[in-house]
């Protein structure tokens, strides 16, 4: 199936969201946020299963969706009760972002089509006009050797990094491994805050992986998360399932 190829085509989380909205013929001005969030998370885990690298932006969007979803669940203050209270639709900002991104995609497609048309047009190199010049051109003045070297140096800066030679040390972090690690720690701690649990994480990439792994653990009902205070630290509790957890200790 063409699943993989389709996944790789997404230029970013907004692209993926637009795709979901279009595919399910949803109203962009009234997004059923619970459904979209669910589908979005399903795509992310599919990407994981296919070992595609999930960029951190996709994870950030997952968090944004979850945040909107939870805000939608809060009772809206009645209009008489709180005048001027913040009763804007929690989806508003996202909708605006999606609309702007949609215009961006439209414009990109216009450009692509024009580029294709223009690539059908050929020119020719300029004619060597030396035979028509009666005299030798005047000598070049005002450029020094350093201008030359400087021009080359600036050029090198303009060349994209991927075309230069550089060694990049890769470190593959798999969500599966991270799930095992987190579960192991949770079996010791039983209860932890998110911050405690991930305190050994050194890079953002690792942080993202840990976060994804935690989401997976929640999905598998192996841990439960609670948040007592708004913006407070998230409490993570191991879901006890018989004795297997005990045995490993």
């Amino acid at each position, binding site marked *: 199936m*063409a699943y993989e190829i*389709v996944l790789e*085509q997404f*230029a*970013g*989380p*907004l*692209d993926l969201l*637009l*795709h979901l*909205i*279009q*595919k399910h*013929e949803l*109203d*962009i*001005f009234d997004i059923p946020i619970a459904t979209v969030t669910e589908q979005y998370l399903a795509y992310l885990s599919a990407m994981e299963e296919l070992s595609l690298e999930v*960029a951190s*932006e996709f994870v950030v*969007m997952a968090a944004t969706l979850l945040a909107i979803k939870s805000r939608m669940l809060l009772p809206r203050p009645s209009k008489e009760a709180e005048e001027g209270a913040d009763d804007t639709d929690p989806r508003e900002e996202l909708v605006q*972002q999606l*609309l*702007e*991104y*949609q*215009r*961006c*995609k*439209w*414009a*990109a*497609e*216009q*450009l*692509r089509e*024009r*580029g*294709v*048309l*223009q*690539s*059908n*047009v*050929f*020119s*020719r*190199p*300029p*004619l060597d*006009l030396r035979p028509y010049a009666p005299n030798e051109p005047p000598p070049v003045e005002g450029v020094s050797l350093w201008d030359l070297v400087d021009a080359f140096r600036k050029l090198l800066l*303009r*060349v*994209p*990094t*991927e*075309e230069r030679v550089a060694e990049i040390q890769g470190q593959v972090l798999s969500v599966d491994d991270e799930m095992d690690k987190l579960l192991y720690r949770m079996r010791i701690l039983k209860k932890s805050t998110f911050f405690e649990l991930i305190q050994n994480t050194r890079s953002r990439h690792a942080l993202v992986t840990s976060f994804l792994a935690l989401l997976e653990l929640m999905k598998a009902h192996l841990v439960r998360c609670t948040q007592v205070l708004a913006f407070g630290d998230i409490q993570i509790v191991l879901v006890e399932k018989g004795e297997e957890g005990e045995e490993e200790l």
Partner: protein
Amino acid sequence: MSMTGALEAVLFAAGSEGMTLDEIAEVLQLSVDETKAVCQELQQSYQERDSGIELVELGGMWQLVTKPEYAVYLRKMATAPISTHLSHAALEVLAIVAYRQPISRIEIEAIRGVQSDRAIQTLVHRQLIAEVGRQEAPGRPILYGTTTTFLQTFGLRSLEDLPPLPEEPEVPQDLSLFQLTPALPRD
């Protein structure tokens, strides 16, 4: 001898980068208005006969190019034009810069929702966008704008030739997305 003949000879010699109206006027010893009239006359005559070339204005430069319908023959020759193929990401960034210039990297990324530095670098390298100034903000971020190469690459006389963006607030509530966005290559 005719002025259109002279213009054709001159533009033929100038080749791929073309000439501005001022430059042509200087060589032909005509006023700019007269030059423009001769350009239009030559354009007309290319349209009327079975020529293989035509006169176009791209980014303020007048140049002779082959007619698009003959591309099939030209592709068989080695002198293919510099590839315009750009990645999805690069095209998106380019579209944003084209319509929202001058614009900073941070602003581009806010619209796209993803890091865009690599795409920006590619576009700078291809000289489709360039630094046009600095934002009066902490760190004085670079502001990007499109270049003449951009206009030439996409067959535009000027930025005014860009198709107008679909407007935002007036989008009727019941307009389906499919009407808004033409044929996206998606399932």
